[in-house]
């Protein structure tokens, strides 16, 4: 079995284009409807001052509180992808999962009234394919750490280059 992958978010790289919301809703509902996207870019904007964006999406927790809290056992982990998935028939729309989720990764679909959340598109997350600046990447679990560290080290490497040039 291939190693599971993780949908990794690097918030510093997000430009706020919301292409992930478009892709997610197209893939999952066949229509363009950001309000039903499983991933949501939250904007912190004040015109004339700042424009910052944070993509929020289920991180498929190691100890998923939503699964533990669900009174109808509608949530479970897909062994192939590692994604927490919703059994639409079992879900009663009680919103307990949404209450306990630490990052707002699960909610109730306004159109179907059952829980909806990122299921990693069955192992090929659609959103990642359009994220030109790679704020979203789909990374094997064992390289998650080095991937994030590499990304964060870029600033340091610039600093080294600067120091080098000053020498």
């Amino acid at each position, binding site marked *: 079995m291939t190693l599971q992958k993780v949908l990794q978010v690097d918030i510093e790289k997000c430009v706020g284009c919301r292409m992930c919301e478009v892709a997610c809703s197209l893939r999952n509902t066949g229509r363009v*409807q950001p309000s039903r996207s499983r991933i949501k870019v939250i904007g912190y904007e004040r015109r004339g001052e700042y424009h910052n964006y944070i993509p929020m999406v289920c991180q498929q927790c190691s100890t998923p509180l939503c699964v533990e809290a669900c009174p109808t056992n509608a949530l479970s982990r897909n062994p192939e992808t590692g994604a927490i998935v919703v059994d639409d028939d079992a879900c009663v729309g009680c919103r307990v999962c949404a209450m306990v989720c630490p990052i707002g990764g699960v909610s109730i679909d306004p159109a179907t009234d059952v829980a909806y959340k990122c299921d990693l598109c069955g192992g090929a997350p*659609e959103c990642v394919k359009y994220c030109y*600046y790679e704020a979203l990447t789909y990374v094997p679990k064992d390289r998650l750490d080095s991937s994030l560290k590499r990304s964060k080290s870029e600033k340091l490497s610039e600093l080294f280059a600067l120091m080098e040039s000053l020498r």
Partner: protein
Amino acid sequence: MTYGWSGKTLQVDLSTGKTSTAPWDKDAKRFLGGRGGNAWLFWLHSKANQSPYDPDAPVILGSGALAGTGLIGTSRMEVTVVSAAKTESHSLGNVGMGSTWAPELKFAGYDNIVIKGRSEKPVYLNIVNDDVEIRDASGVWGKGTFDTETLLKEEAGDMDAQVACIGPAGENLVVQATVEHGYRSGTPVGASVGAKKLKAVVVRGTGAVNVHDPDAILEHNRRLVETVKDTKKRLGEAIPRSDGKDAYLQGFLVGDAGVVGNYESHAWRDRPDVRKAYEENYLGDYFEKNIGCFGCPFPCQPLFDLPGEGACIWRCYPTYWPWKLWMTDLSAAFKATRLMTDLGMDNKEVATIVSWLMHLRDMGVVTDEDLDGVPFDKGNPEPLFETARRMAYREGYGNALAEGPVAYAKKLGDKAMNYLYHNQGLTMRTFEFRAEPGTALGEAISARGNSLRATTYHVVLWGKPARDDYAGVDPREMEDSLAWSREMFGTEKAIMATEYEGKPAALIYEMNGAAIADSLGYCVTMIRPGRVGAPGSQFGDASYQFAAERFTAATGIPTDEAALFEAAERVCNIERAIVVRDGRTRATDALPEFFFEEPVPDGPQQGKRLDRKLFEKMKDEYYALRGWDRETGLQREATLRKLGMADVAEKLKAAGKLAPAGEEG
């Protein structure tokens, strides 16, 4: 099921407070949406020679036909009004903007909005899906556009709401006032909105846009992302401004863009001290990041943040005018841009007016006393700030200027008028029309006037004498571009900036491409057809076919290059019908005498001026290619019928504005 479009127009009457909807039907879809759709609504809802301050004058806000369909680059909105800024003709005024308002309107369930009537008190329109409310705007009246956006989002209790608004300039009916959304505004349309006491249109939509083939849309998007990645590998940095470097500033420093002063010089930038000043004063240190539009992963608007000042976009328009004021202090130019974005006014109009006043003062045509003692020395940024503020709040000399530069020139006399270069009241800004016949033709003939939309790229980019490094094009792709021109127009001169030959055909190709992009709501850098080696070519295939395939994926309507070209013809013809209805003729498709008489004084284009005979010959050819009457510039019935616009022809005929029947050509 309707795909692509929402299928609905929202109609609002601010006098009665009534709102209703009308279907966006087959007749309307002839003009797609966005700029073309707005022109159609304008044709239906405006009267001949209407005043921008007539309560019945329509203000139209529209989303492009493909806005909200998820296709990368389809984010654009359009605002269309009876222009207050075109003080000498009024008629059609429009502006296109990106960011997020247009898709949000689609998610709310509308293609466009027609606003008529006039409110007694300041109001704003609040749209949340089917809930449309005219709300009291007294809390934001008088506020700048920055605060207005924040306050209205807070009032909506929804930070995802999208705001298009006017600032103090629009409230005070300053003709240079803009409608602002996402730092994107350009051509002034704000006074016509202020006249309605309408502060803002706030939109929030949670609905869906139906698309015919979701998989095809995703596939098109996937391929585009791959193309840009490939281009980046092939040519280095694919997005010219992604490091905060501004292509247009680079164009000034090393290329051939822009005139200096009030068309006073071309050689100023060649001075080493100026070049050094620009390079050293460049704001690169303050670059934050690029921000962009909804659904486009290639954001191209560089956001700069000046300490103690605040953030704003510093992009092509704001960067091309500092040298019109002989300014080397780019941080002052940036601050002025930010100020005017907040005041909601067109910084290009204001800067050009200041440049003109500096010129007049230099010649003693205006005195310091006329200008309230503000020091209009060339290169001094102070008059820019003072003029912007005084115009926005109608103080001192700014009050008169807020009625437009022509009115002010009339007060000063003939000499002032002779040095004011304008098109229907809109100032002529940075193009050297004397050396660029295609640009000149586009400026003279475009429906809106003052039209980058008509005149960019193919007709101006290549063959400039000073193209020594980067002037907006990639020299490595010049050969391909020339080959394309030979194939398309029979001569490579068609795309050489300083040539007349083949220009009308190249210009029509260019204008139609812009009309399609603006009407589909597509980013013009993305589908400007056939543009090889120019900005936007990182998107690879930017042909009409590119647009056609995407249009079909979104709407399910089979189409091809020829059909889209015909749709563009319709858009250009409905706009022509509007301005012709309001008095435009061949005689008024014109430019100031100056560009024919005074040669370029210095620099690489020295000695060039427009040749009247060749210019008029270009017009002959242009009208013939469009199927318009050569003598009068009026449209022919047969042309309009062929385009499926018999209804438009009927109305023009009734108004006596159709070309006389008879000989063709």
